[in-house]
């Protein structure tokens, strides 16, 4: 799961990542690689630290220990212009899309182009409408406010915003949560199509196995702060790992004991 055959470093390389909140250890020496052009899906139960992992990579949370390298460059502790430069490689689809309420849809999609790349507003609007079309939304949607959109449309706009800046790496935070199965599958198809067209590396977190099977090249399971199993998506049904088996079949009985009350 690490370096490609040509010796190029992984797009994302994480080693020994530790993150705690008070006494609660969330990430406990996590190791993970994402190769160039690879789509990795991290699965795991609620509260196991999947979102924390993404936030640590994005620099929104600072880990206590460990290394995160993007294209071989250490990014833990990066600030100012260096961080902005690295952040321009990323696109992110948030769980609830996190659209800016105060801006119309087209300006949400064009935000990274206008603010991050200094693109002219008219040109950015044309670009945003193209991206909206790429996720199956018409130009008229661009004039709406995010509050006027359904859950599925919000996800599509979030995806359009994530791909608008032509990122090298895209993160998907529970892309199908809260959607009906059909709309979930539409979003999965859009993710696969957009990622293929961009040639981006992606890291997704989900507990929707249908979504994981559709968008992943490789699946990694997070449990107790560590990746306890990682392998090609085709092997997930034959992982020989009791934790993975219990999770993918959604069984209450097994080695994973759900916490029913706070410690």
């Amino acid at each position, binding site marked *: 799961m690490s370096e490609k055959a040509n010796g190029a470093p992984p797009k994302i390389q994480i080693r020994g990542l530790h993150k705690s909140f008070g006494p609660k250890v969330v990430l406990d020496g996590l190791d993970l690689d994402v190769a160039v052009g690879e789509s990795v899906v991290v699965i795991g139960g609620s509260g196991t630290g999947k979102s924390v992992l993404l*936030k640590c990579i*994005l*620099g*929104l949370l600072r880990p206590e220990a460990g290394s995160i390298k993007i294209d071989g460059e250490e990014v833990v502790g990066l600030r100012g212009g260096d961080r*902005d430069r690295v*952040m*321009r490689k*990323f*696109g*992110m689809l*948030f*769980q*609830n899309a*996190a*659209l*800016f*309420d*105060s801006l119309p849809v087209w300006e949400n999609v064009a*935000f*990274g182009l206008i*603010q*991050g790349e200094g693109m002219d507003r008219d040109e950015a609007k044309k670009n945003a409408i193209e991206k909206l079309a790429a996720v199956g939304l018409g130009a008229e949607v661009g004039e709406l406010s995010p509050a006027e959109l359904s859950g599925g449309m919000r996800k599509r706009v979030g995806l359009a*915003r994530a791909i608008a*800046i032509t990122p090298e790496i895209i993160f998907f935070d529970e892309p199908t949560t809260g959607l009906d199965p059909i709309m979930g599958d539409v979003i999965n198809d859009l993710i696969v199509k957009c990622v293929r067209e961009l040639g981006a590396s992606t890291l997704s977190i989900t507990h929707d196995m249908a979504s994981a099977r559709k968008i992943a090249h490789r699946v990694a399971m997070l449990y107790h702060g560590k990746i306890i199993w990682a392998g090609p998506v085709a092997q997930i049904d034959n992982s020989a790992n009791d934790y993975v088996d219990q999770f993918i079949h959604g069984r209450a009985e097994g080695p994973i004991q759900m916490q029913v009350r706070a410690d």
Partner: protein
Amino acid sequence: MPILQPIGRTLLIFFAAAGRLSMFAANGLSHCVRPPLYFRLIARQMIDIGYYSLPVVGLTAIFTGMVLALQSYTGFARFAAESAIPNVVVISITRELGPVLAGLMVAGRVGAAMAAEIGTMRVTEQIDALDTLATNPFKYLVAPRLIAGITTLPILVFIADIIGVFGGYVVSIYKLGFNPTTYLKNTVDFVQTEDVVSGLVKAAVFGFLITLMGCYHGYNSKGGAQGVGAATTNAVVSASILILCCNYFITEMFFAR
């Protein structure tokens, strides 16, 4: 000793909060003077803070000026000192009541709205989204509000001063029977540049405090709707208290001899 522990703990919490606020203010102010500046956002905030606060601040000022003239008359008439009413009205409005009442009204209207807006952005991950789009939230959210607060409140207070003095004039002329020319002459003769300037300096400081408290509490809100509600309350209460405290120190700075 056990009795000292809660005192020490409270002091540590206080100093930690003061430190966090100071760091936040320093970070916000540093982005106010470092390009790029978002002029479109600054203009929008100036309209929100200044233009949309004008009705409420104007009403507060005019009724305060009217009440001030009426109350001064009932007191000063006992000593046959009614001629001092224009002086009392203009000094009270420009030095104290204009900036303080405008500050408190704006804290209630704008500070609460800022905390609620930024707090909602925090709990719905919109601030994280800004970060991932390589846009510094301090530069995009905090700096425009601070700049707008510092520059707009003095303009608002200057208008409130005029409206407040006009309120006193209306009551004095139409209810108390003053001569309009004499009233205006007394007002203009008595007011000094320092009176107006001290009020405008206060307004700039209050504008900074209101926007700082709105941004700080909103930015650090957590826990969903309840957290946003708490942030809104904290923003208004802390801004109001700071306005009243700072008002004393600025007054002392200008007028204590």
